[in-house]
């Protein structure tokens, strides 16, 4: 599992200030910490970048490359900033992200071809978010076909099914379930493509202290269905430990829950019980509420 470190994110106040004041140290420290924790890529999420997109992105990429040798994921919707970022990268970068929307096909996908980089392509289209597995497959096949036409091979494409928060309008659970299914069949419908997810989106809106269990459990479940990578927090030690084979009993338990095996909770520790309960809500087996660990 390739973890794309999500922590350099403009929504974080410290990062936004550091970008504005060109304070490289704050950003470099965070890049180093993520690299040491086992990240495979460092994501640079700079948002829409209305001011000085080229110069800012260039500065940021260079600052991070001074701190780590890891490849970078350039995460912006601004095509000018995107190009500046890709140009400045020493190693083959990840363009994060393109989609099936017309504007993205015109502005982003050609950049992936031009700079010969890897590219995240989401299932979004001009029609919005495809509501079920079948329409997700249809839309990604059409966008990947378009990308192939531009000369981008499947091997460079990282498909993003788009995760929605589990509490979304009472039907977020339907999406956690169908995204599991989508990831499971992806390699069969598009041989050679990779996959990625914005993992923490699953727990968006959930009380802060309850987010890690959802993120960790879901990652194990997605990994079992052959997920290739995730944009996630590498500083979450338990999360990294789970994906690095450090907690085989927990992983086993999550798999058993996915298989619908009857699990005797009375023989389990508190932590194990929490993983089982969390897997059950992510499977859509029990109705989600913020009190899912308590009931």
């Amino acid at each position, binding site marked *: 599992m390739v973890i794309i470190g999500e922590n350099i994110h403009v929504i974080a106040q410290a990062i936004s200030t550091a970008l504005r004041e060109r304070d490289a140290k704050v950003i470099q420290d965070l890049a180093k910490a993520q690299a040491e924790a086992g990240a495979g890529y460092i994501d640079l999420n700079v948002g829409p970048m209305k001011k000085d997109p080229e110069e800012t992105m260039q500065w940021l990429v260079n600052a991070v490359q001074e701190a780590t040798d890891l490849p970078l994921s350039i995460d912006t919707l601004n095509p000018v900033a995107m190009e500046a970022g890709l140009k400045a990268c020493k190693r083959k970068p990840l363009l994060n992200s393109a989609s099936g929307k017309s504007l993205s096909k015109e502005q982003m996908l050609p950049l992936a071809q031009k700079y010969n980089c890897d590219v995240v392509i989401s299932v979004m289209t001009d029609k919005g978010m495809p509501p079920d597995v079948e329409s997700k497959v249809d839309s990604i096949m059409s966008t990947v076909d378009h990308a192939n036409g531009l000369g981008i091979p499947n091997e460079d494409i990282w498909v993003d099914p788009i995760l929605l928060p589990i*509490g979304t*309008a*009472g039907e*977020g659970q339907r999406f956690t379930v169908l995204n599991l299914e989508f990831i499971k069949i992806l390699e069969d419908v598009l041989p050679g493509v990779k996959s990625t997810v914005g993992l923490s989106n699953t727990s968006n809106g959930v009380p802060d202290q309850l987010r890690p269990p959802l993120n960790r459990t879901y990652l194990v479940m997605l990994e079992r269905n052959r997920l290739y990578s995730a944009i996630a927090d590498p500083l979450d030690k338990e999360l990294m430990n789970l994906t690095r084979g450090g907690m085989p009993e927990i992983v086993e338990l999550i798999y058993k829950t996915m298989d619908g095996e009857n699990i005797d909770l009375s023989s389990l520790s508190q932590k194990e019980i929490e993983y089982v309960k969390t897997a059950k809500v992510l499977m859509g*087996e*029990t*109705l*989600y*509420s*913020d*009190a899912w660990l*308590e*009931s």
Partner: protein
Amino acid sequence: MEYKAPVEAYTGVVREVTIGKGKKSLKIGGENILPFHFFDQGSNPNPVKFALEVLDMEPQDWPEHLTQPFKDVLTDPVKWAKKCEELGADAVFLRLVSTDPAVKDSSADGAAVMAKKVAEAINIPLIIYGSGDDKKDAEVLPKVAEACDGMNLLIGPVQKENYEIVGRALLEHGHNASALSPLDINLLKELNVKLSKFFPSDRIVIDSLSSALGYGMEYSFSLMERVKQIGVITKDSMTMMPIIANLGAECWKTKQAKETKEQGLLWEGLTALSLLLAGANILVLRHPETLKLIKETIEAR
């Protein structure tokens, strides 16, 4: 080949809740089938019940065709409640609207005295709702619960913001709780989980918010249907409670219901029928003629 109709049998059973005591009591819930699925295996031992609404002050914004059936009793909640009993209601729903800080901000003590008088005057069970202002209800509902100690009423709305203080008072004085959450099944379950930690689950009724026809009824319908399905089919303990559809007030707020009597009765009637099909166990109505209309419809007269 001979055709055999598929018959479903479910494992979930909605908890049966008793409101009131002795002869002045009724039961709701207890079913292990989906609403009106009498062709499946299982039963609903307690057919749907109807309450008529009484306010603790003279209504300010009711159209004349709604006040007309109660015109002599509107200033006296006790008489008004008795009138509802005469008109065939299974229960009286008393709304303490005057306690709302935005209305009269009347005192919790006064509301408690009034609630007790109404409860004692009628021979059918009583449901009492505060104004819905969660802070004021946290003062008013415990006093009401204390004044009506041991009467086993249904009292609400118990909300996320005040469930601890209101829930404990209801428990101490022997009442049922009506747990209200804003049209979201995840929040609904969360409230039931939290309340159930100290309050018996078999004394909780779900109020999932009942919007009127044309004003979001389809959301209420889908949610209620889902609550019932998750309870009966997937046996989720925290949604296996009977449901109250508090729809009268929502319907009579609408411009359409206020315009003419026929339109008002149909507005309230169609909303009621729809929510009944979605799985409501007790419905709160305002107009006695709607009550008659719905009863006739269900009994296929």
